[in-house]
């Protein structure tokens, strides 16, 4: 046995695997023989951090995953939440959330494009129509030439892929921070629509022994070989060239046809009442996908690798089995259905005509053995126990929870005083600088590069409100909104609180259009988990997510972890828990955007500002030494959300924005600027002293004194344009939430404050639009 172990170790090292010596030993001991190359690559992928969550799983268990709105929880390629009923059918929204960070750093265009490609397949394989995508992006500083290149190419890659397949982009967010200089974060979220009765599971159905395993899509090639374990490594400059081969090659044209052909297959399965298993090929390639399908169904598999359509002759078996060539999917269907499935892909949708070697082909059979057997021209290249292969390994990594710096009230007050030496200064000088901040400026120059309206189901395209809104069931008023939160400046201050605030932000965004939050997803982007401080930040962030989700009673329905976001120079990314929230609305006619609608409305704030400026845009712009992140009172926040949602549903609100980067005043400026395509509307604001009226704010001590800083405070809350102030304030009293009036809308293109200060909307628009417009170019 010692010889076997030595041989296994030597082989593992020769093949450049990410498997540790200990893991190699376990594999050899389990098999009782020297593993084949194909087996080693299969374990390397399957036991990678990317596939097995080996460092994170024990912590992720803490997230709440159940609730009345969940149709399908965590465990398959995507989760499903209830959208609503229409014509006697229950509709669900499928949601998947992933990262494509490592590939996007190495080859940004292809990395970002295949990120969209992969997440779309995750949604498709649940039996759903893909209805929307969104990208949370974290770029390095744009002063850095390589970061500029990455930031341009990532947006181009997303546009090229998403636009071509015809799935609308419903939003996403962008933050820019030095910690992403060497490691861009490209997260992708995709949404799908499926009737509850039509959900297809990623598993071999019961009693499916003898059924066909069918591989559909692009011809297998060498691209993307070793991608799963590559994404679990630290990026090293010297390996940049070598790593490029581990990134897949996108083909949105083929995907467009593949999606439509797959919809036609769905229709036939339903017409004939056939149950099937379906899963996309991602990390771990064909072997990973078909193994997980069969393992999930408690079955086994026997595949013949030479039946796989390949782009080159003589591909070695390990590349056919493990390579991560894009645009492929795997079906398990009864043999009686196989001819129809093959003819839909190969003839009606003529895959072989669309791309060389693309097709649907039977490559194996489901067995009852519980083993995964792969043969290549008769030679057995893989024969492993499925549970052992897909069960993976678990690690309890050491971690050190982050210590969070605290500041005394006196320190905080002193910091605020220093930042505002002149109490009489105009808030608008500062507002201009705040709006021009890299994380506040208009994202429209990016959104314009994406098609946000293809499919004709978009009610609110990205950028017009805090959340994009789709109306996915033709003829039905049911709407779905997507919000995204995750501020890296907060992450650096306190990963736990940053997670909480990311959940609050995503929830507030869907609330601001009138939707009810029904499900959360997360992608946890962190540094090297073998560094205890980095692992500690991860653990703290998971605690924060769990706490917020439990308190707000919104389950997590899918998620993803991306570790090792660290460069060879030791630069870890800011702890980046990125959260998306699915909101649903029974009636789209009530949805509101973030643009002012008419003259003379009262502008009100819902929620309580806090003197907490840690990680805020204000702190960064003024150089304020602030250390505390905003706090959240969950019960009060939930009531504020309910008030806003009720207010929208009853037609009492005309426009809403959540208070985020840049605070109340930035939100008001954006609401005024956003009105301009349809009407000219400014605002007249009350003196900032008056907003501390103790009668009007809830009687708490969060705001102990008056000053201008509060206009820029970031806190979980909303700015609303009220259609009916009396009715809304009274609804607020009913729900126990104070609404504070801070000004009125006017018909003039200015913001005015306190009869002394004013600024034109043109000036504000220029400040707000210039930063990214100058970088991404203006489009009209």
């Amino acid at each position, binding site marked *: 046995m010692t010889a076997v172990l030595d041989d296994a170790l030597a082989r593992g090292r020769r093949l450049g695997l990410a498997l540790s010596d200990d893991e190699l030993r376990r594999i050899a001991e389990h098999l009782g023989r020297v593993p084949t190359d194909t087996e080693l690559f299969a374990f390397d992928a399957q036991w990678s951090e990317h596939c097995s969550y080996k460092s994170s799983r024990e912590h992720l268990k803490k997230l709440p995953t159940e609730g009345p709105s969940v149709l399908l929880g965590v465990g398959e390629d995507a989760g499903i939440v209830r959208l609503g009923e229409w014509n006697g059918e229950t509709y669900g929204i499928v949601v998947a959330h992933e990262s494509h960070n490592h590939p996007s750093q190495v080859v940004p265009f292809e990395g970002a494009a295949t990120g969209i490609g992969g997440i779309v397949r995750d949604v498709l394989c649940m039996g759903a129509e893909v209805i929307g995508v969104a990208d949370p992006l974290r770029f390095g500083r744009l002063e850095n030439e390589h970061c500029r290149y990455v930031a341009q190419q990532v947006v181009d890659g997303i546009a090229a892929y998403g*636009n071509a397949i015809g799935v609308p982009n419903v939003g996403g967010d962008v933050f820019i921070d030095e910690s992403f200089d060497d490691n861009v974060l490209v997260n992708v979220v995709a949404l799908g629509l499926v009737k509850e009765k039509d959900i297809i599971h990623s598993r071999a159905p019961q009693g499916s022994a003898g059924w066909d395993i069918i591989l559909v899509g692009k011809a297998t090639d060498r691209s993307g070989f070793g991608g799963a374990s590559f994404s679990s490594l630290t990026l090293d400059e010297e390996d940049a060239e070598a790593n490029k081969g581990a990134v897949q090659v996108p083909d949105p*044209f083929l995907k467009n046809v593949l999606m439509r052909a797959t919809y036609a297959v769905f229709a036939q399965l339903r017409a004939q009442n056939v149950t099937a298993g379906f899963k996309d090929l991602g990390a771990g390639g064909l072997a990973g996908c078909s193994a997980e399908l069969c393992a999930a169904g408690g079955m086994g598999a026997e595949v013949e690798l030479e039946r796989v359509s390949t782009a080159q002759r003589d591909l070695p078996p390990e590349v056919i089995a493990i390579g991560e060539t894009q645009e492929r999917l795997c079906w398990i269907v009864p043999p009686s259905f196989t001819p129809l499935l093959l003819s839909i892909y190969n003839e009606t949708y003529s895959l072989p005509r669309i791309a060389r070697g693309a097709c649907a082909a039977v490559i194996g059979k489901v067995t009852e053995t519980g083993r995964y057997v792969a043969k290549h021209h008769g030679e057995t290249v893989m024969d492993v126990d499925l549970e052992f292969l897909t069960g993976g390994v678990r690690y309890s990594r050491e971690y050190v929870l982050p210590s969070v710096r605290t500041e005394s009230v006196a320190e905080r007050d002193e910091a605020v005083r220093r930042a505002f030496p002149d109490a009489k200064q105009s808030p608008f000088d500062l507002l201009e600088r705040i709006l021009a901040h890299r994380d506040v400026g208009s994202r429209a120059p990016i959104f314009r590069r994406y098609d946000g309206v293809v499919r004709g189901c978009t009610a609110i395209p990205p950028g017009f409100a805090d959340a994009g809104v789709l109306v996915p069931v033709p003829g039905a008023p049911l709407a779905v909104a997507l919000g995204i939160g995750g501020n890296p400046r907060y992450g650096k201050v306190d990963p736990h609180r940053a997670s909480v605030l990311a959940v609050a932000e995503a929830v507030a965004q869907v609330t601001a259009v009138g939707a009810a939050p029904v499900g959360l997803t997360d992608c946890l982007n962190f540094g090297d988990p073998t560094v205890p401080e980095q692992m500690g930040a991860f653990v703290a962030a998971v605690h924060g997510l769990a706490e917020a989700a439990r308190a707000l009673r919104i389950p997590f329905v899918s998620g993803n972890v991306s570790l090792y976001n660290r460069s060879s120079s030791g630069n870890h990314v800011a702890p980046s828990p990125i959260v998306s929230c699915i909101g649903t609305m029974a009636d789209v006619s009530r949805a509101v955007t973030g643009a002012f609608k008419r003259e003379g409305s009262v502008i009100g704030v819902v929620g309580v500002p806090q003197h907490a400026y840690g990680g805020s845009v204000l702190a960064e712009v003024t150089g304020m030494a602030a250390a505390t992140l905003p706090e959240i009172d969950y019960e009060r926040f939930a009531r504020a959300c309910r008030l806003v949602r009720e207010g929208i549903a009853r037609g009492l609100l005309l426009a809403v924005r959540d208070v985020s980067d840049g605070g109340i005043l930035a939100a008001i400026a954006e609401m005024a600027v956003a009105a301009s395509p349809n009407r000219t509307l400014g605002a007249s604001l009350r003196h900032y002293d008056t907003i501390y009226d103790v009668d009007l704010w809830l009687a708490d001590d969060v705001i102990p004194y008056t000053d201008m800083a509060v206009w820029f405070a970031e806190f979980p809350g909303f700015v609303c344009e009220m259609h009916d102030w009396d009715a809304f304030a009274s609804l607020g009293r009913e729900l126990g939430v104070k609404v504070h009036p801070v000004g009125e809308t006017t018909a003039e293109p200015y913001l005015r404050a306190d009869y002394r200060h004013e600024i034109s909307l043109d000036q504000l628009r220029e400040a707000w639009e210039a930063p990214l417009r100058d970088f991404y170019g203006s489009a009209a």
Partner: protein
Amino acid sequence: MSERVAVVVFPGTNSEDETLRALLAVGLDGELVHWSQPERLAQFDAFVLPGGFAYEDRIRAGAVAAHDAVMDPVIEAAQAGKFVLGICNGAQVLAEAGLVPGTGPLRRPTAAFAPNDSGRFQSVHVHVKLTVAPERVPILAGIEPNAVIPAWASHGDGRLAAPADELARIERDGHRAFVYCDRDGSEVPAPNGSALNAAALVNREGNVLAIMPHPERDAWTYQHLDVSRENARIETAAALAPSGGIRLFEHFARAVNGKVPA
């Protein structure tokens, strides 16, 4: 009985479903016909080429699709006077097929929709205005003079380009059917740098129209709630009703159904 309309789907087309939905909403009997079934097309009375990236827009936008066998019956029908509407990629295909402006031989385009002056795909909300006399566009039967229609300009190649003499002819002979304008109908510069500020071309007979912006993406009230919302309440049925860009399809339907003499 309504006339039958084929929505022609090429590999790479991506706007077929919403285009079909708009046709059904105006009472037309529409159906998707895929590239692998060209033989089915002869039985249709009118044709719509929807948006997307047919054949990946290889060579030039719409160029490969214009040479696809599935276009043979469409070209034949256009020459026989049947109505053919191309939207976005469909408009590019019609230009590449030589059907608009239709001043040269078939499949030898005299004008094309070239890459936007920004060099990039862009998606912006626009309005377009009819700039020819309504008699000039029998494919939009009953359309009023200077009609303004909202739409989304979502394309990478929407800039009309042609030699100077061809552009002069397009303008002089009334091939430039629509220009870009604001919501009140005042002309504004095209978002893509299009020559003559053109948003759409029509052939000499007025039965083939190629329009770059997508009216089917702003065809329901819920897609432009902000325009009409000064009072917060909009009835559910009203929000789901067709409005805005649907007008282009209403006029197309009247033409196809022959309700208004051309």
